Protein backbone atom coordinates (compact mmCIF):
# COMPACT_ATOMS: atom_id res chain seq x y z
CA UNK A 1 0.00 0.00 0.00
CA UNK A 2 1.48 3.37 -1.02
CA UNK A 3 1.64 6.47 1.20
CA UNK A 4 -1.45 8.04 -0.37
CA UNK A 5 -3.57 4.93 0.35
CA UNK A 6 -2.17 4.66 3.87
CA UNK A 7 -3.05 8.26 4.67
CA UNK A 8 -6.52 7.87 3.18
CA UNK A 9 -7.10 4.70 5.19
CA UNK A 10 -6.00 6.47 8.34
CA UNK A 11 -8.52 9.32 7.74
CA UNK A 12 -11.25 6.76 7.05
CA UNK A 13 -10.53 4.94 10.29
CA UNK A 14 -10.73 8.20 12.28
CA UNK A 15 -14.06 8.95 10.53
CA UNK A 16 -15.25 5.53 11.63
CA UNK A 17 -14.27 6.25 15.27
CA UNK A 18 -16.24 9.51 15.05
CA UNK A 19 -19.32 7.68 13.75
CA UNK A 20 -19.09 5.05 16.49
CA UNK A 21 -18.77 7.71 19.20
CA UNK A 22 -21.69 9.70 17.79
CA UNK A 23 -23.93 6.61 17.84
CA UNK A 24 -22.93 5.94 21.45
CA UNK A 25 -23.64 9.56 22.45
CA UNK A 26 -27.19 9.36 21.05
CA UNK A 27 -28.15 7.15 23.98
CA UNK A 28 -25.47 8.44 26.42
CA UNK A 29 -25.66 12.21 25.81
CA UNK A 30 -23.99 13.14 29.12
CA UNK A 31 -21.07 10.72 28.92
CA UNK A 32 -18.08 13.03 29.45
CA UNK A 33 -15.50 10.44 28.40
CA UNK A 34 -17.28 9.89 25.06
CA UNK A 35 -17.62 13.65 24.51
CA UNK A 36 -13.92 14.06 25.19
CA UNK A 37 -13.10 11.22 22.75
CA UNK A 38 -15.30 12.79 20.08
CA UNK A 39 -13.48 16.13 20.37
CA UNK A 40 -10.14 14.33 20.17
CA UNK A 41 -11.16 12.28 17.08
CA UNK A 42 -12.42 15.40 15.34
CA UNK A 43 -9.12 17.16 16.01
CA UNK A 44 -7.22 14.14 14.63
CA UNK A 45 -9.46 14.09 11.55
CA UNK A 46 -8.78 17.78 10.82
CA UNK A 47 -5.04 17.21 11.16
CA UNK A 48 -5.00 14.03 9.08
CA UNK A 49 -7.00 15.65 6.27
CA UNK A 50 -4.73 18.74 6.32
CA UNK A 51 -1.63 16.51 6.09
CA UNK A 52 -3.18 14.49 3.24
CA UNK A 53 -4.31 17.53 1.28
CA UNK A 54 -0.93 19.24 1.62
CA UNK A 55 0.60 16.29 -0.24
CA UNK A 56 -2.07 14.89 -2.55
CA UNK A 57 -4.85 17.47 -3.05
CA UNK A 58 -8.50 17.11 -2.08
CA UNK A 59 -9.36 14.18 0.21
CA UNK A 60 -12.87 13.96 -1.21
CA UNK A 61 -14.53 16.46 -3.52
CA UNK A 62 -17.67 18.01 -2.06
CA UNK A 63 -20.23 20.26 -3.71
CA UNK A 64 -19.00 23.04 -1.36
CA UNK A 65 -15.58 23.05 -2.98
CA UNK A 66 -15.02 25.99 -5.19
CA UNK A 67 -13.90 24.45 -8.47
CA UNK A 68 -10.21 25.12 -9.01
CA UNK A 69 -10.76 25.14 -12.73
CA UNK A 70 -13.56 26.44 -14.93
CA UNK A 71 -15.51 23.22 -14.64
CA UNK A 72 -17.74 21.42 -12.08
CA UNK A 73 -15.40 18.69 -10.85
CA UNK A 74 -18.02 17.13 -8.52
CA UNK A 75 -19.04 14.83 -11.36
CA UNK A 76 -15.53 13.51 -12.01
CA UNK A 77 -14.71 9.79 -11.72
CA UNK A 78 -14.30 7.70 -9.76
CA UNK A 79 -17.73 7.46 -8.18
CA UNK A 80 -17.68 5.45 -4.94
CA UNK A 81 -19.04 2.21 -6.40
CA UNK A 82 -16.46 2.15 -9.18
CA UNK A 83 -13.44 -0.04 -8.53
CA UNK A 84 -10.37 1.98 -7.52
CA UNK A 85 -7.55 0.49 -9.59
Amino acid at each position, binding site marked *: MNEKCMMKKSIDSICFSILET*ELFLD*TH*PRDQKALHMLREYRRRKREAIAAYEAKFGKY*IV*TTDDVPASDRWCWIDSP*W*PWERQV
Partner: protein
Amino acid sequence: MWKYEKKLQYPVNIKNPNPKYAKIIISQYGGPDGELGASMRYLTQRYGMPYNEVKGILTDVGTEELAHLEMICAMVYQLTRNLTPEQIKASGFDTYFVDHTASVYPVAASGLPWRAEYIQSKGDIIADLHEDLGAEQKARVTYDNLIRLIDDPDILDPLKFLRQREIVHYQRFGDAKHTHSNRFIYKVHNQKKGLSKHGSPLCFYSSSLL
Protein backbone atom coordinates in the same frame (compact mmCIF):
# COMPACT_ATOMS: atom_id res chain seq x y z
CA MET B 1 -32.04 16.69 4.83
CA TRP B 2 -29.08 14.63 3.78
CA LYS B 3 -25.75 15.53 2.27
CA TYR B 4 -23.88 13.05 0.11
CA GLU B 5 -20.25 12.21 0.84
CA LYS B 6 -18.61 10.91 -2.27
CA LYS B 7 -17.03 7.83 -0.69
CA LEU B 8 -17.98 4.40 0.66
CA GLN B 9 -18.08 3.85 4.41
CA TYR B 10 -15.69 0.91 3.93
CA PRO B 11 -13.82 0.10 0.71
CA VAL B 12 -15.25 -2.32 -1.86
CA ASN B 13 -12.67 -3.40 -4.41
CA ILE B 14 -13.52 -6.72 -6.03
CA LYS B 15 -11.08 -7.97 -8.68
CA ASN B 16 -13.02 -10.94 -10.08
CA PRO B 17 -16.59 -10.52 -11.38
CA ASN B 18 -18.90 -13.32 -10.26
CA PRO B 19 -22.60 -13.07 -11.20
CA LYS B 20 -23.49 -16.06 -9.02
CA TYR B 21 -22.30 -14.20 -5.92
CA ALA B 22 -23.98 -10.98 -7.11
CA LYS B 23 -27.29 -12.83 -7.22
CA ILE B 24 -27.11 -13.79 -3.53
CA ILE B 25 -25.45 -10.62 -2.21
CA ILE B 26 -28.25 -8.50 -3.75
CA SER B 27 -30.53 -9.90 -1.02
CA GLN B 28 -28.80 -7.54 1.41
CA TYR B 29 -30.08 -4.68 -0.79
CA GLY B 30 -33.66 -5.67 -1.59
CA GLY B 31 -34.25 -8.78 0.53
CA PRO B 32 -36.47 -9.12 3.63
CA ASP B 33 -33.60 -8.26 6.02
CA GLY B 34 -31.56 -6.09 3.66
CA GLU B 35 -30.13 -2.62 4.04
CA LEU B 36 -32.86 -0.85 2.03
CA GLY B 37 -35.48 -2.13 4.46
CA ALA B 38 -33.23 -1.29 7.42
CA SER B 39 -32.78 2.35 6.41
CA MET B 40 -36.47 2.82 5.57
CA ARG B 41 -37.54 1.11 8.82
CA TYR B 42 -35.47 3.33 11.12
CA LEU B 43 -35.92 6.58 9.26
CA THR B 44 -39.69 6.01 9.12
CA GLN B 45 -40.08 4.97 12.76
CA ARG B 46 -38.50 8.23 13.97
CA TYR B 47 -41.75 10.16 13.68
CA GLY B 48 -43.54 7.98 16.24
CA MET B 49 -40.83 8.22 18.89
CA PRO B 50 -41.33 10.22 22.07
CA TYR B 51 -37.68 10.56 23.21
CA ASN B 52 -34.78 12.48 21.72
CA GLU B 53 -32.30 9.66 22.44
CA VAL B 54 -34.38 7.31 20.30
CA LYS B 55 -35.02 9.87 17.56
CA GLY B 56 -31.25 10.39 17.47
CA ILE B 57 -30.24 6.74 17.24
CA LEU B 58 -32.90 5.96 14.59
CA THR B 59 -31.74 8.93 12.50
CA ASP B 60 -28.06 8.04 12.73
CA VAL B 61 -28.40 4.27 12.31
CA GLY B 62 -30.93 4.78 9.49
CA THR B 63 -28.42 7.08 7.79
CA GLU B 64 -25.59 4.57 8.24
CA GLU B 65 -27.83 1.90 6.64
CA LEU B 66 -28.00 4.11 3.52
CA ALA B 67 -24.20 3.92 3.41
CA HIS B 68 -24.44 0.12 3.76
CA LEU B 69 -26.99 -0.08 0.97
CA GLU B 70 -24.47 1.77 -1.19
CA MET B 71 -21.73 -0.73 -0.29
CA ILE B 72 -23.96 -3.69 -1.20
CA CYS B 73 -24.87 -2.03 -4.51
CA ALA B 74 -21.16 -1.38 -5.16
CA MET B 75 -20.47 -5.09 -4.60
CA VAL B 76 -23.25 -6.17 -6.98
CA TYR B 77 -22.06 -3.59 -9.52
CA GLN B 78 -18.45 -4.75 -9.42
CA LEU B 79 -19.41 -8.44 -9.53
CA THR B 80 -21.41 -7.98 -12.74
CA ARG B 81 -18.92 -6.08 -14.93
CA ASN B 82 -17.89 -7.30 -18.41
CA LEU B 83 -19.90 -10.53 -18.39
CA THR B 84 -20.20 -12.68 -21.49
CA PRO B 85 -23.57 -14.23 -22.45
CA GLU B 86 -22.04 -17.63 -21.63
CA GLN B 87 -21.09 -16.52 -18.09
CA ILE B 88 -24.56 -15.06 -17.59
CA LYS B 89 -26.27 -18.31 -18.64
CA ALA B 90 -23.90 -20.64 -16.79
CA SER B 91 -24.14 -18.69 -13.49
CA GLY B 92 -27.94 -18.55 -13.36
CA PHE B 93 -27.75 -14.74 -13.51
CA ASP B 94 -29.85 -14.89 -16.70
CA THR B 95 -33.13 -14.80 -14.74
CA TYR B 96 -32.09 -11.41 -13.27
CA PHE B 97 -30.34 -10.16 -16.41
CA VAL B 98 -33.42 -10.53 -18.62
CA ASP B 99 -35.32 -7.89 -16.58
CA HIS B 100 -32.55 -5.62 -15.28
CA THR B 101 -29.49 -6.22 -17.53
CA ALA B 102 -26.51 -5.50 -15.24
CA SER B 103 -28.18 -2.64 -13.40
CA VAL B 104 -28.93 -2.85 -9.67
CA TYR B 105 -32.55 -3.45 -8.64
CA PRO B 106 -33.79 -4.17 -5.09
CA VAL B 107 -34.68 -7.86 -5.04
CA ALA B 108 -34.13 -10.77 -2.66
CA ALA B 109 -31.86 -13.66 -3.68
CA SER B 110 -35.05 -15.52 -4.64
CA GLY B 111 -35.93 -12.75 -7.13
CA LEU B 112 -38.81 -11.28 -5.09
CA PRO B 113 -38.73 -7.47 -5.36
CA TRP B 114 -38.39 -5.34 -2.20
CA ARG B 115 -41.70 -4.82 -0.38
CA ALA B 116 -42.79 -2.30 2.25
CA GLU B 117 -44.17 -5.26 4.23
CA TYR B 118 -40.57 -6.02 5.26
CA ILE B 119 -40.72 -3.09 7.69
CA GLN B 120 -43.08 -1.87 10.40
CA SER B 121 -43.77 1.52 11.93
CA LYS B 122 -46.07 0.88 14.85
CA GLY B 123 -45.85 4.18 16.71
CA ASP B 124 -45.03 2.38 19.94
CA ILE B 125 -41.54 2.56 21.36
CA ILE B 126 -41.53 -0.99 22.77
CA ALA B 127 -42.95 -2.62 19.63
CA ASP B 128 -40.70 -0.65 17.27
CA LEU B 129 -37.45 -1.07 19.21
CA HIS B 130 -38.07 -4.80 19.56
CA GLU B 131 -38.59 -5.02 15.81
CA ASP B 132 -35.32 -3.13 15.30
CA LEU B 133 -33.39 -5.46 17.61
CA GLY B 134 -34.80 -8.45 15.69
CA ALA B 135 -34.05 -6.84 12.34
CA GLU B 136 -30.38 -6.35 13.24
CA GLN B 137 -30.04 -9.99 14.26
CA LYS B 138 -31.78 -11.21 11.08
CA ALA B 139 -29.44 -9.07 8.97
CA ARG B 140 -26.50 -10.49 10.94
CA VAL B 141 -27.67 -14.07 10.14
CA THR B 142 -28.00 -13.16 6.44
CA TYR B 143 -24.38 -11.94 6.49
CA ASP B 144 -23.39 -15.17 8.28
CA ASN B 145 -25.03 -17.15 5.48
CA LEU B 146 -23.35 -15.10 2.74
CA ILE B 147 -19.98 -15.57 4.45
CA ARG B 148 -20.66 -19.35 4.52
CA LEU B 149 -21.38 -19.41 0.77
CA ILE B 150 -18.62 -17.10 -0.53
CA ASP B 151 -14.88 -17.77 -0.68
CA ASP B 152 -13.47 -14.63 -2.35
CA PRO B 153 -11.49 -12.53 0.21
CA ASP B 154 -12.28 -9.32 -1.73
CA ILE B 155 -15.98 -9.93 -1.01
CA LEU B 156 -15.61 -11.40 2.48
CA ASP B 157 -13.76 -8.34 3.82
CA PRO B 158 -16.59 -5.80 3.34
CA LEU B 159 -19.20 -8.46 4.27
CA LYS B 160 -17.47 -9.01 7.61
CA PHE B 161 -17.39 -5.27 8.23
CA LEU B 162 -21.13 -5.04 7.54
CA ARG B 163 -21.84 -8.04 9.77
CA GLN B 164 -20.04 -6.29 12.65
CA ARG B 165 -22.15 -3.17 12.16
CA GLU B 166 -25.34 -5.20 12.69
CA ILE B 167 -24.00 -6.23 16.10
CA VAL B 168 -23.11 -2.64 17.05
CA HIS B 169 -26.54 -1.39 15.96
CA TYR B 170 -28.14 -4.14 18.03
CA GLN B 171 -26.20 -2.87 21.05
CA ARG B 172 -27.24 0.73 20.42
CA PHE B 173 -30.93 -0.19 20.05
CA GLY B 174 -30.56 -2.16 23.29
CA ASP B 175 -29.26 1.01 24.95
CA ALA B 176 -32.21 2.95 23.54
CA LYS B 177 -34.57 0.36 25.02
CA HIS B 178 -32.87 0.72 28.42
CA THR B 179 -33.18 4.50 28.21
CA HIS B 180 -36.89 4.00 27.77
CA SER B 181 -37.14 1.40 30.56
CA ASN B 182 -35.32 3.67 32.99
CA ARG B 183 -37.63 6.55 32.20
CA PHE B 184 -40.60 4.23 32.56
CA ILE B 185 -39.50 3.13 36.03
CA TYR B 186 -38.94 6.76 37.00
CA LYS B 187 -42.39 7.66 35.71
CA VAL B 188 -44.12 4.83 37.60
CA HIS B 189 -42.20 5.85 40.69
CA ASN B 190 -43.45 9.42 40.32
CA GLN B 191 -46.99 8.26 39.68
CA LYS B 192 -46.96 6.24 42.90
CA LYS B 193 -45.84 9.30 44.74
CA GLY B 194 -48.65 11.27 43.11
CA LEU B 195 -46.21 13.46 41.16
CA SER B 196 -47.76 12.89 37.75
CA LYS B 197 -51.24 13.40 36.47
CA HIS B 198 -50.80 10.91 33.63
CA GLY B 199 -52.81 7.79 34.22
CA SER B 200 -52.00 4.60 32.39
CA PRO B 201 -48.59 3.49 31.13
CA LEU B 202 -50.16 3.40 27.65
CA CYS B 203 -50.05 7.18 27.57
CA PHE B 204 -46.38 6.97 28.29
CA TYR B 205 -45.49 4.86 25.27
CA SER B 206 -46.65 7.36 22.71
CA SER B 207 -46.45 11.08 23.31
CA SER B 208 -49.24 11.66 20.77
CA LEU B 209 -51.74 9.99 23.10
CA LEU B 210 -51.03 12.30 25.98
